[in-house]
């Protein structure tokens, strides 16, 4: 089947690998602490102030574990989400689009209520999670729905 915006199925394991590493590093930073992986960075946009020391258009040192976790999660998540299943066809594409819609709805409904009821630093945390939740919700929903459609097969025929 011809499909737009989907990658070949062979990239899916690579996606899972990157996503897992990203999740592990990310969880470590959020729940345990800094890893202090420092590297020279060149911000196009940065800030020099009370807690930030990364001025725009100048080399400076930065702890890059959070950037690394984000990039791994986004790259891995996109690959997992948008590489074809081994048997991708029009029915699975329909499940895919419906799952994507579901994930977008759920994500923004949660964000809507977070805007209403969460403030200050906790809201900053919501924004951090929200960078990744659309992808995560979609991946969970899509794989659940595909598995469910396979499970009903046992009782048919």
């Amino acid at each position, binding site marked *: 089947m011809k499909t737009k915006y989907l990658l070949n199925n062979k990239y899916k394991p690579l996606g899972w690998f990157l996503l897992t590493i990203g999740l592990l590093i990310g969880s470590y930073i959020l729940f345990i602490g800094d890893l202090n992986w420092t590297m020279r960075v060149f911000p196009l946009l940065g800030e020099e102030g009370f807690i930030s020391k990364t001025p725009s258009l100048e080399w400076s040192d930065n702890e890059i574990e959070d950037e690394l976790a984000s990039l791994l999660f986004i790259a891995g998540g996109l690959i997992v989400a948008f590489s074809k299943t081994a048997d991708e*066809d*029009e029915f*699975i594409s*329909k499940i895919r689009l419906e799952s994507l819609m579901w994930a977008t709805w759920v994500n923004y409904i949660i964000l809507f209520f977070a805007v209403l009821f969460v403030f200050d630093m906790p809201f900053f945390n919501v924004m951090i999670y929200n960078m990744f939740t659309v992808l995560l919700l979609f991946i969970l929903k899509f794989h659940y729905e595909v598995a469910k459609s396979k499970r*009903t097969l046992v009782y*048919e025929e």
Partner: protein
Amino acid sequence: MKNSIKVERAIKGLTQAKLAELIGVSRQTINAMELNKYVPSTVLALKLSEIFEKPVNEIFQLDADD
């Protein structure tokens, strides 16, 4: 929309898996169509029509709520 895929499949003596292979879809797709959970594209309907050697509108019929 209703369809008689399950019946036609039985007439041809095909399993879901075999029919899926013949028209190049997953087995879930055949299953979902037979359970009226999925309305196939025109391309898929025409492929089924070829396999069953019957016109499309003998395999698929409109429902009251279509």
